Protein backbone atom coordinates (compact mmCIF):
# COMPACT_ATOMS: atom_id res chain seq x y z
CA UNK A 1 0.00 0.00 0.00
CA UNK A 2 2.85 2.36 0.92
CA UNK A 3 6.45 1.87 -0.19
CA UNK A 4 9.40 4.14 0.49
CA UNK A 5 12.38 3.20 -1.61
CA UNK A 6 15.70 4.68 -0.47
CA UNK A 7 14.06 8.01 0.33
CA UNK A 8 16.00 11.04 1.52
CA UNK A 9 14.73 14.53 2.19
CA UNK A 10 17.35 17.21 2.31
CA UNK A 11 16.53 20.85 2.99
CA UNK A 12 18.28 23.70 1.16
CA UNK A 13 20.33 24.48 4.28
CA UNK A 14 21.91 21.03 4.02
CA UNK A 15 20.19 19.27 6.90
CA UNK A 16 18.54 15.91 6.30
CA UNK A 17 15.01 15.37 7.58
CA UNK A 18 15.00 11.81 6.23
CA UNK A 19 17.95 9.71 5.14
CA UNK A 20 17.98 6.46 3.12
CA UNK A 21 14.57 5.35 4.36
CA UNK A 22 13.21 2.01 3.11
CA UNK A 23 9.77 1.11 4.32
CA UNK A 24 6.94 -1.13 3.11
CA UNK A 25 3.47 -0.94 4.63
CA UNK A 26 0.91 -3.55 3.54
CA UNK A 27 -2.78 -2.92 3.05
CA UNK A 28 -4.58 -3.17 6.41
CA UNK A 29 -1.44 -2.57 8.49
CA UNK A 30 -1.45 -0.51 11.68
CA UNK A 31 1.90 1.25 12.03
CA UNK A 32 3.18 3.52 14.79
CA UNK A 33 5.85 6.03 13.83
CA UNK A 34 7.85 6.88 16.93
CA UNK A 35 10.94 8.93 17.67
CA UNK A 36 11.84 12.22 19.31
CA UNK A 37 10.74 15.57 17.93
CA UNK A 38 12.62 16.36 14.74
CA UNK A 39 13.35 12.70 14.02
CA UNK A 40 11.48 12.93 10.69
CA UNK A 41 8.00 11.58 11.48
CA UNK A 42 6.12 14.62 10.22
CA UNK A 43 8.33 14.91 7.15
CA UNK A 44 7.56 11.28 6.28
CA UNK A 45 3.85 12.01 6.58
CA UNK A 46 4.15 15.12 4.43
CA UNK A 47 5.86 13.06 1.72
CA UNK A 48 2.94 10.60 1.70
CA UNK A 49 0.41 13.33 0.90
CA UNK A 50 2.78 15.28 -1.31
CA UNK A 51 2.93 18.32 0.91
CA UNK A 52 6.61 17.94 0.20
CA UNK A 53 8.61 15.91 -2.29
CA UNK A 54 11.53 13.59 -1.58
CA UNK A 55 14.96 14.82 -2.63
CA UNK A 56 15.96 11.32 -3.75
CA UNK A 57 14.24 7.93 -3.82
CA UNK A 58 10.66 6.98 -4.58
CA UNK A 59 7.49 7.22 -2.52
CA UNK A 60 4.73 4.88 -3.74
CA UNK A 61 1.23 5.27 -2.32
CA UNK A 62 -1.53 2.98 -3.54
CA UNK A 63 0.44 2.15 -6.68
CA UNK A 64 1.25 5.73 -7.64
CA UNK A 65 4.70 7.32 -7.56
CA UNK A 66 3.76 10.32 -5.42
CA UNK A 67 6.84 12.36 -6.30
CA UNK A 68 6.01 12.20 -9.98
CA UNK A 69 2.33 12.98 -9.74
CA UNK A 70 1.44 15.95 -11.91
CA UNK A 71 0.13 18.81 -9.82
CA UNK A 72 -3.41 18.25 -11.02
CA UNK A 73 -3.35 14.67 -9.68
CA UNK A 74 -2.29 15.62 -6.14
CA UNK A 75 -5.88 16.37 -5.15
CA UNK A 76 -6.90 12.86 -6.27
CA UNK A 77 -4.15 11.34 -4.13
CA UNK A 78 -5.41 13.24 -1.11
CA UNK A 79 -8.92 11.91 -1.54
CA UNK A 80 -7.51 8.41 -1.14
CA UNK A 81 -5.43 9.31 1.90
CA UNK A 82 -7.22 10.71 4.94
CA UNK A 83 -5.17 12.82 7.36
CA UNK A 84 -5.77 13.73 11.00
CA UNK A 85 -3.67 16.29 12.86
CA UNK A 86 -2.83 17.12 16.43
CA UNK A 87 -4.53 20.53 16.09
CA UNK A 88 -7.65 19.09 14.36
CA UNK A 89 -7.71 21.76 11.63
CA UNK A 90 -11.47 22.29 11.73
CA UNK A 91 -13.15 25.35 10.23
CA UNK A 92 -14.50 27.37 13.19
CA UNK A 93 -17.36 28.91 11.22
CA UNK A 94 -18.77 25.57 10.13
CA UNK A 95 -20.73 23.04 12.17
CA UNK A 96 -19.59 19.47 12.74
CA UNK A 97 -21.68 18.21 9.85
CA UNK A 98 -20.54 21.05 7.58
CA UNK A 99 -16.89 20.42 8.38
CA UNK A 100 -17.31 16.78 7.42
CA UNK A 101 -19.45 17.50 4.37
CA UNK A 102 -16.88 20.06 3.21
CA UNK A 103 -14.48 17.25 2.25
CA UNK A 104 -17.16 15.81 -0.02
CA UNK A 105 -18.35 19.10 -1.46
CA UNK A 106 -14.88 20.13 -2.59
CA UNK A 107 -14.61 16.92 -4.58
CA UNK A 108 -17.87 17.71 -6.38
CA UNK A 109 -20.17 15.07 -4.92
CA UNK A 110 -23.94 15.51 -5.28
CA UNK A 111 -26.14 16.70 -2.42
CA UNK A 112 -27.73 13.30 -1.72
CA UNK A 113 -24.36 11.56 -1.43
CA UNK A 114 -23.00 14.37 0.74
CA UNK A 115 -25.89 13.95 3.23
CA UNK A 116 -25.71 10.14 3.22
CA UNK A 117 -21.94 9.80 3.62
CA UNK A 118 -21.74 12.57 6.23
CA UNK A 119 -24.39 10.77 8.29
CA UNK A 120 -22.53 7.47 7.90
CA UNK A 121 -19.19 8.74 9.25
CA UNK A 122 -20.79 10.87 11.97
CA UNK A 123 -22.50 7.76 13.36
CA UNK A 124 -19.23 5.81 12.98
CA UNK A 125 -17.42 8.33 15.22
CA UNK A 126 -20.45 8.74 17.50
CA UNK A 127 -21.19 12.39 16.77
CA UNK A 128 -24.62 12.15 15.15
CA UNK A 129 -26.16 14.03 18.09
CA UNK A 130 -23.62 16.85 17.85
CA UNK A 131 -23.88 17.50 14.12
CA UNK A 132 -25.20 21.06 14.55
CA UNK A 133 -22.51 22.20 17.01
CA UNK A 134 -19.61 24.45 16.15
CA UNK A 135 -16.03 23.34 16.95
CA UNK A 136 -15.69 25.73 19.92
CA UNK A 137 -18.76 24.13 21.50
CA UNK A 138 -17.07 20.70 21.45
CA UNK A 139 -14.55 19.00 23.74
CA UNK A 140 -11.08 18.24 22.37
CA UNK A 141 -12.00 14.60 21.86
CA UNK A 142 -15.14 15.53 19.97
CA UNK A 143 -13.19 17.90 17.77
CA UNK A 144 -10.71 15.16 16.96
CA UNK A 145 -13.55 12.74 16.21
CA UNK A 146 -14.96 15.35 13.82
CA UNK A 147 -11.58 15.55 12.12
CA UNK A 148 -11.45 11.75 11.88
CA UNK A 149 -14.95 11.70 10.39
CA UNK A 150 -13.84 14.27 7.82
CA UNK A 151 -10.75 12.21 7.01
CA UNK A 152 -12.88 9.11 6.50
CA UNK A 153 -15.77 10.57 4.55
CA UNK A 154 -14.08 10.11 1.17
CA UNK A 155 -13.60 6.39 2.06
CA UNK A 156 -9.80 6.58 1.92
CA UNK A 157 -7.75 3.38 1.77
CA UNK A 158 -5.14 4.94 4.05
CA UNK A 159 -5.59 7.02 7.19
CA UNK A 160 -2.63 8.99 8.46
CA UNK A 161 -2.70 10.47 11.95
CA UNK A 162 -0.01 12.92 13.03
CA UNK A 163 0.01 12.97 16.84
CA UNK A 164 -3.79 12.65 17.01
CA UNK A 165 -3.77 12.48 20.82
CA UNK A 166 -1.15 15.16 21.35
CA UNK A 167 -3.66 17.72 22.66
CA UNK A 168 -5.93 15.31 24.55
CA UNK A 169 -6.12 14.02 28.10
CA UNK A 170 -5.40 10.28 28.70
CA UNK A 171 -9.04 9.17 28.85
CA UNK A 172 -9.98 11.02 25.70
CA UNK A 173 -6.81 9.76 24.01
CA UNK A 174 -7.94 6.22 24.60
CA UNK A 175 -11.33 6.98 23.05
CA UNK A 176 -9.60 8.26 19.94
CA UNK A 177 -7.27 5.26 19.79
CA UNK A 178 -10.22 2.88 20.12
CA UNK A 179 -11.91 4.67 17.27
CA UNK A 180 -8.78 4.50 15.09
CA UNK A 181 -8.35 0.80 15.89
CA UNK A 182 -11.93 0.21 14.82
CA UNK A 183 -11.31 2.10 11.55
CA UNK A 184 -8.24 -0.08 10.96
CA UNK A 185 -10.27 -3.24 11.64
CA UNK A 186 -12.73 -2.10 8.98
CA UNK A 187 -9.85 -2.38 6.48
CA UNK A 188 -8.21 1.06 6.37
CA UNK A 189 -4.42 1.09 6.50
CA UNK A 190 -3.36 3.23 9.46
CA UNK A 191 -0.13 5.15 9.96
CA UNK A 192 0.11 7.04 13.22
CA UNK A 193 2.93 9.24 14.46
CA UNK A 194 2.88 9.47 18.26
CA UNK A 195 4.79 10.28 21.41
CA UNK A 196 2.34 8.37 23.55
CA UNK A 197 4.37 5.44 24.93
CA UNK A 198 1.47 4.06 26.95
CA UNK A 199 -0.69 3.60 23.88
CA UNK A 200 2.08 2.06 21.78
CA UNK A 201 3.03 -0.36 24.52
CA UNK A 202 -0.56 -1.38 25.19
CA UNK A 203 -1.50 -2.02 21.57
CA UNK A 204 1.62 -3.97 20.51
CA UNK A 205 1.41 -3.09 16.82
CA UNK A 206 4.15 -2.58 14.29
CA UNK A 207 6.55 0.16 15.42
CA UNK A 208 8.83 2.09 13.09
CA UNK A 209 11.36 4.10 15.08
CA UNK A 210 12.97 7.13 13.42
CA UNK A 211 16.09 8.83 14.71
CA UNK A 212 17.78 11.73 12.93
CA UNK A 213 15.92 10.88 9.77
CA UNK A 214 16.87 7.19 9.68
CA UNK A 215 14.80 4.12 10.45
CA UNK A 216 16.63 2.64 13.44
CA UNK A 217 14.03 0.01 14.39
CA UNK A 218 11.10 -1.69 12.64
CA UNK A 219 9.35 -4.32 14.76
CA UNK A 220 6.10 -6.27 14.57
CA UNK A 221 4.25 -6.09 17.90
CA UNK A 222 6.85 -3.55 19.03
CA UNK A 223 7.16 -1.37 22.10
CA UNK A 224 7.61 2.41 22.27
CA UNK A 225 11.28 2.03 23.28
CA UNK A 226 13.52 -0.86 22.39
Amino acid at each position, binding site marked *: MITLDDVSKRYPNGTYALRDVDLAIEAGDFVFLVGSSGAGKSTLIRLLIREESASTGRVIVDGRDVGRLPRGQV*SHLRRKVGVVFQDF*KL*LPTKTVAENVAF*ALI*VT*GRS*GAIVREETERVLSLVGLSQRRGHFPDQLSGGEQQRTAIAR*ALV*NRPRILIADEPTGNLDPVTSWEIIKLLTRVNELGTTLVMATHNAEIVNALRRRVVHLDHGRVVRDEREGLYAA
Partner: protein
Amino acid sequence: MRRVLYIFTSAGQGFSRNPAMSIASTLTVTLMLTLFAFFMTTDRGLQAAVTVLEGKVELALFLDDNAKVSDVLALKARIETDPSVARVDYVTKAQALQRLQDIAANRPDFALADISTNPLPASLEIKMADARQAKSLADDLRAEVGKGVVYDVVDNPQVVDELLTITRVLSVGGIAILAMMLFVALFVIVNTIRIAVHARRDEIEIMQLVGASDWFVRWPFILEGMLVGFLGALVSLAVLFAASGPVTSVMASFLDVLPVNFGADFAVQLAASVFGVALLVGAGGASLSVRAHLAK
Protein backbone atom coordinates in the same frame (compact mmCIF):
# COMPACT_ATOMS: atom_id res chain seq x y z
CA MET B 1 -24.29 21.93 -7.56
CA ARG B 2 -23.19 22.28 -3.94
CA ARG B 3 -19.73 22.98 -5.21
CA VAL B 4 -20.94 25.84 -7.41
CA LEU B 5 -22.97 27.20 -4.52
CA TYR B 6 -19.92 27.06 -2.28
CA ILE B 7 -17.81 28.92 -4.84
CA PHE B 8 -20.35 31.72 -5.22
CA THR B 9 -21.03 32.17 -1.50
CA SER B 10 -17.29 32.18 -0.79
CA ALA B 11 -16.73 34.87 -3.39
CA GLY B 12 -19.50 37.02 -1.91
CA GLN B 13 -18.21 36.51 1.63
CA GLY B 14 -14.72 37.42 0.52
CA PHE B 15 -15.99 40.68 -0.91
CA SER B 16 -18.08 41.66 2.10
CA ARG B 17 -15.62 40.47 4.73
CA ASN B 18 -13.28 43.36 3.99
CA PRO B 19 -15.56 46.14 2.74
CA ALA B 20 -13.05 49.01 2.90
CA MET B 21 -10.58 47.22 0.67
CA SER B 22 -13.28 45.95 -1.67
CA ILE B 23 -14.73 49.44 -2.13
CA ALA B 24 -11.28 50.95 -2.61
CA SER B 25 -10.43 48.49 -5.34
CA THR B 26 -13.84 48.86 -6.95
CA LEU B 27 -13.34 52.64 -7.11
CA THR B 28 -9.86 52.26 -8.58
CA VAL B 29 -11.27 49.98 -11.23
CA THR B 30 -14.08 52.49 -11.81
CA LEU B 31 -11.58 55.28 -12.36
CA MET B 32 -9.56 53.15 -14.75
CA LEU B 33 -12.64 52.15 -16.73
CA THR B 34 -13.97 55.71 -16.90
CA LEU B 35 -10.66 56.87 -18.34
CA PHE B 36 -10.73 53.93 -20.71
CA ALA B 37 -14.22 54.85 -21.89
CA PHE B 38 -13.21 58.50 -22.18
CA PHE B 39 -10.27 57.69 -24.41
CA MET B 40 -12.26 55.24 -26.44
CA THR B 41 -14.96 57.88 -27.04
CA THR B 42 -12.50 60.67 -27.81
CA ASP B 43 -10.57 58.46 -30.16
CA ARG B 44 -13.74 57.45 -31.94
CA GLY B 45 -14.84 61.10 -32.21
CA LEU B 46 -11.52 62.24 -33.61
CA GLN B 47 -11.45 59.40 -36.07
CA ALA B 48 -14.91 60.35 -37.28
CA ALA B 49 -13.80 63.96 -37.57
CA VAL B 50 -10.73 62.94 -39.54
CA THR B 51 -12.85 60.84 -41.89
CA VAL B 52 -15.24 63.71 -42.48
CA LEU B 53 -12.41 66.16 -43.10
CA GLU B 54 -10.49 63.74 -45.25
CA GLY B 55 -13.51 63.53 -47.51
CA LYS B 56 -13.33 67.28 -47.95
CA VAL B 57 -9.67 67.55 -48.73
CA GLU B 58 -8.91 68.49 -52.23
CA LEU B 59 -6.17 69.95 -54.31
CA ALA B 60 -6.93 72.54 -56.90
CA LEU B 61 -4.82 72.69 -60.02
CA PHE B 62 -5.34 75.97 -61.80
CA LEU B 63 -4.74 75.68 -65.50
CA ASP B 64 -3.06 78.00 -67.89
CA ASP B 65 -5.60 79.74 -70.16
CA ASN B 66 -3.55 78.67 -73.16
CA ALA B 67 -3.28 75.01 -72.19
CA LYS B 68 -4.44 72.57 -74.83
CA VAL B 69 -7.42 70.48 -73.84
CA SER B 70 -5.64 67.29 -74.89
CA ASP B 71 -2.72 68.12 -72.55
CA VAL B 72 -5.15 68.85 -69.71
CA LEU B 73 -6.95 65.54 -70.25
CA ALA B 74 -3.62 63.70 -70.37
CA LEU B 75 -2.62 65.29 -67.05
CA LYS B 76 -6.03 64.44 -65.57
CA ALA B 77 -5.62 60.79 -66.62
CA ARG B 78 -2.15 60.68 -65.15
CA ILE B 79 -3.33 62.03 -61.77
CA GLU B 80 -6.20 59.57 -61.72
CA THR B 81 -3.76 56.65 -61.76
CA ASP B 82 -2.42 57.76 -58.34
CA PRO B 83 -3.91 55.34 -55.74
CA SER B 84 -4.21 58.10 -53.14
CA VAL B 85 -6.55 60.05 -55.43
CA ALA B 86 -10.27 59.41 -55.31
CA ARG B 87 -11.54 61.55 -58.17
CA VAL B 88 -10.44 64.29 -60.54
CA ASP B 89 -12.96 66.79 -61.89
CA TYR B 90 -12.33 69.11 -64.76
CA VAL B 91 -13.85 72.53 -64.15
CA THR B 92 -13.90 74.74 -67.23
CA LYS B 93 -13.64 78.51 -67.15
CA ALA B 94 -17.39 78.80 -67.82
CA GLN B 95 -18.24 76.42 -64.96
CA ALA B 96 -15.99 78.36 -62.59
CA LEU B 97 -17.76 81.58 -63.48
CA GLN B 98 -21.15 79.93 -63.06
CA ARG B 99 -20.18 78.80 -59.54
CA LEU B 100 -19.13 82.29 -58.59
CA GLN B 101 -22.40 83.69 -59.89
CA ASP B 102 -24.35 81.05 -57.93
CA ILE B 103 -22.57 82.05 -54.73
CA ALA B 104 -23.23 85.71 -55.42
CA ALA B 105 -26.92 85.06 -56.05
CA ASN B 106 -27.26 83.60 -52.55
CA ARG B 107 -25.51 86.44 -50.81
CA PRO B 108 -27.04 89.91 -51.02
CA ASP B 109 -23.87 91.58 -49.75
CA PHE B 110 -21.90 90.16 -52.63
CA ALA B 111 -22.54 91.95 -55.90
CA LEU B 112 -20.72 90.98 -59.05
CA ALA B 113 -19.76 93.74 -61.41
CA ASP B 114 -20.57 92.82 -64.95
CA ILE B 115 -17.32 92.46 -66.83
CA SER B 116 -17.15 91.28 -70.36
CA THR B 117 -14.32 88.77 -70.02
CA ASN B 118 -14.03 85.74 -67.75
CA PRO B 119 -10.98 86.14 -65.46
CA LEU B 120 -11.39 82.78 -63.72
CA PRO B 121 -9.04 79.98 -64.75
CA ALA B 122 -10.11 76.47 -65.59
CA SER B 123 -9.04 73.92 -62.99
CA LEU B 124 -8.66 70.28 -62.07
CA GLU B 125 -10.18 69.51 -58.67
CA ILE B 126 -8.57 66.50 -57.05
CA LYS B 127 -10.41 64.64 -54.30
CA MET B 128 -8.03 62.63 -52.13
CA ALA B 129 -8.72 59.07 -51.06
CA ASP B 130 -5.85 59.28 -48.59
CA ALA B 131 -5.60 62.81 -47.22
CA ARG B 132 -2.16 62.18 -45.79
CA GLN B 133 -0.74 62.00 -49.33
CA ALA B 134 -2.18 65.39 -50.32
CA LYS B 135 0.97 67.31 -49.51
CA SER B 136 3.38 65.10 -51.42
CA LEU B 137 1.06 64.98 -54.44
CA ALA B 138 0.84 68.77 -54.39
CA ASP B 139 4.63 69.00 -54.28
CA ASP B 140 4.89 66.63 -57.26
CA LEU B 141 2.41 68.66 -59.26
CA ARG B 142 4.18 71.91 -58.53
CA ALA B 143 6.95 70.65 -60.77
CA GLU B 144 4.48 71.07 -63.65
CA VAL B 145 4.00 74.78 -62.98
CA GLY B 146 5.30 76.92 -65.83
CA LYS B 147 5.37 74.12 -68.43
CA GLY B 148 2.34 75.50 -70.22
CA VAL B 149 -0.44 73.49 -68.60
CA VAL B 150 -0.42 74.12 -64.85
CA TYR B 151 -0.57 77.67 -63.66
CA ASP B 152 -0.74 77.10 -59.90
CA VAL B 153 -1.33 74.37 -57.29
CA VAL B 154 -3.35 75.11 -54.18
CA ASP B 155 -3.51 72.66 -51.30
CA ASN B 156 -4.97 73.16 -47.86
CA PRO B 157 -4.52 69.97 -45.86
CA GLN B 158 -3.23 71.59 -42.65
CA VAL B 159 -6.46 70.99 -40.74
CA VAL B 160 -6.24 67.28 -41.43
CA ASP B 161 -2.57 67.22 -40.59
CA GLU B 162 -3.30 68.85 -37.28
CA LEU B 163 -6.19 66.53 -36.52
CA LEU B 164 -4.06 63.54 -37.37
CA THR B 165 -1.38 64.81 -35.03
CA ILE B 166 -3.90 65.32 -32.24
CA THR B 167 -5.26 61.82 -32.82
CA ARG B 168 -1.80 60.34 -32.72
CA VAL B 169 -0.81 62.21 -29.55
CA LEU B 170 -4.07 61.26 -27.88
CA SER B 171 -3.69 57.62 -28.87
CA VAL B 172 -0.14 57.36 -27.60
CA GLY B 173 -0.83 59.42 -24.49
CA GLY B 174 -4.09 57.59 -23.90
CA ILE B 175 -2.45 54.20 -24.19
CA ALA B 176 0.31 55.28 -21.81
CA ILE B 177 -2.15 56.61 -19.23
CA LEU B 178 -4.36 53.55 -19.64
CA ALA B 179 -1.38 51.25 -19.20
CA MET B 180 -0.55 53.00 -15.95
CA MET B 181 -4.14 52.84 -14.75
CA LEU B 182 -4.34 49.21 -15.73
CA PHE B 183 -1.23 48.54 -13.70
CA VAL B 184 -2.65 50.38 -10.69
CA ALA B 185 -5.98 48.56 -10.98
CA LEU B 186 -4.23 45.20 -11.25
CA PHE B 187 -2.03 46.04 -8.30
CA VAL B 188 -5.00 46.99 -6.14
CA ILE B 189 -6.95 43.89 -7.12
CA VAL B 190 -3.95 41.65 -6.50
CA ASN B 191 -3.65 43.12 -3.02
CA THR B 192 -7.37 42.94 -2.29
CA ILE B 193 -7.42 39.28 -3.23
CA ARG B 194 -4.21 38.66 -1.35
CA ILE B 195 -5.92 39.89 1.80
CA ALA B 196 -8.91 37.68 1.02
CA VAL B 197 -6.59 34.71 0.50
CA HIS B 198 -4.78 35.48 3.73
CA ALA B 199 -8.06 35.63 5.65
CA ARG B 200 -8.90 32.19 4.27
CA ARG B 201 -5.50 30.51 4.42
CA ASP B 202 -6.71 27.92 6.96
CA GLU B 203 -9.68 27.10 4.81
CA ILE B 204 -7.44 26.82 1.74
CA GLU B 205 -5.04 24.52 3.58
CA ILE B 206 -7.90 22.28 4.68
CA MET B 207 -9.43 22.31 1.21
CA GLN B 208 -6.15 21.14 -0.22
CA LEU B 209 -5.71 18.49 2.45
CA VAL B 210 -9.10 16.95 1.77
CA GLY B 211 -8.44 16.84 -1.96
CA ALA B 212 -9.88 20.00 -3.51
CA SER B 213 -8.41 20.71 -6.93
CA ASP B 214 -6.41 23.89 -7.45
CA TRP B 215 -9.21 25.20 -9.62
CA PHE B 216 -11.74 24.71 -6.90
CA VAL B 217 -9.51 26.67 -4.54
CA ARG B 218 -9.00 29.42 -7.11
CA TRP B 219 -12.53 29.99 -8.35
CA PRO B 220 -13.98 31.86 -5.35
CA PHE B 221 -11.13 34.35 -5.52
CA ILE B 222 -11.30 34.76 -9.27
CA LEU B 223 -15.02 35.37 -8.97
CA GLU B 224 -14.38 37.88 -6.21
CA GLY B 225 -11.95 39.70 -8.52
CA MET B 226 -14.50 39.63 -11.30
CA LEU B 227 -17.13 40.96 -8.91
CA VAL B 228 -14.85 43.94 -8.17
CA GLY B 229 -14.44 44.45 -11.92
CA PHE B 230 -18.15 44.09 -12.57
CA LEU B 231 -19.14 46.63 -9.91
CA GLY B 232 -16.44 48.99 -11.19
CA ALA B 233 -17.87 48.68 -14.70
CA LEU B 234 -21.39 49.37 -13.45
CA VAL B 235 -20.36 52.50 -11.56
CA SER B 236 -18.23 53.79 -14.41
CA LEU B 237 -20.98 53.24 -16.98
CA ALA B 238 -23.45 54.99 -14.67
CA VAL B 239 -21.06 57.95 -14.42
CA LEU B 240 -20.62 57.97 -18.20
CA PHE B 241 -24.33 57.77 -18.79
CA ALA B 242 -25.00 60.66 -16.42
CA ALA B 243 -22.23 62.72 -18.00
CA SER B 244 -22.97 61.89 -21.62
CA GLY B 245 -25.82 64.43 -22.02
CA PRO B 246 -23.99 67.57 -20.87
CA VAL B 247 -20.70 66.52 -22.48
CA THR B 248 -22.40 65.86 -25.80
CA SER B 249 -24.03 69.31 -25.88
CA VAL B 250 -20.73 71.01 -25.03
CA MET B 251 -18.90 68.99 -27.65
CA ALA B 252 -21.62 69.62 -30.23
CA SER B 253 -21.31 73.39 -29.88
CA PHE B 254 -17.55 73.08 -29.92
CA LEU B 255 -17.41 70.86 -32.96
CA ASP B 256 -20.56 72.04 -34.68
CA VAL B 257 -18.92 71.94 -38.08
CA LEU B 258 -18.42 68.21 -37.73
CA PRO B 259 -21.40 65.91 -38.11
CA VAL B 260 -20.11 63.45 -35.50
CA ASN B 261 -22.76 61.05 -34.26
CA PHE B 262 -21.84 57.99 -32.22
CA GLY B 263 -25.19 56.27 -32.21
CA ALA B 264 -26.49 53.29 -30.27
CA ASP B 265 -24.03 50.86 -31.82
CA PHE B 266 -21.16 52.70 -30.23
CA ALA B 267 -22.87 52.77 -26.82
CA VAL B 268 -23.26 48.98 -26.94
CA GLN B 269 -19.68 48.57 -28.10
CA LEU B 270 -18.43 50.86 -25.34
CA ALA B 271 -20.40 49.05 -22.62
CA ALA B 272 -19.21 45.66 -23.88
CA SER B 273 -15.58 46.83 -23.95
CA VAL B 274 -15.82 48.35 -20.46
CA PHE B 275 -17.31 45.13 -19.04
CA GLY B 276 -14.81 43.01 -20.95
CA VAL B 277 -11.82 44.96 -19.65
CA ALA B 278 -13.29 45.01 -16.13
CA LEU B 279 -13.85 41.26 -15.94
CA LEU B 280 -10.46 40.50 -17.48
CA VAL B 281 -8.62 42.79 -15.08
CA GLY B 282 -10.56 41.41 -12.09
CA ALA B 283 -10.03 37.78 -13.02
CA GLY B 284 -6.42 38.37 -14.07
CA GLY B 285 -5.44 40.18 -10.88
CA ALA B 286 -7.16 37.59 -8.71
CA SER B 287 -5.58 34.62 -10.41
CA LEU B 288 -2.14 36.22 -10.17
CA SER B 289 -2.71 36.59 -6.45
CA VAL B 290 -4.04 33.06 -5.80
CA ARG B 291 -1.44 31.51 -8.04
CA ALA B 292 1.28 33.17 -6.00
CA HIS B 293 -0.27 31.79 -2.81
CA LEU B 294 -0.70 28.25 -4.15
CA ALA B 295 2.85 28.17 -5.49
CA LYS B 296 4.24 28.75 -1.99
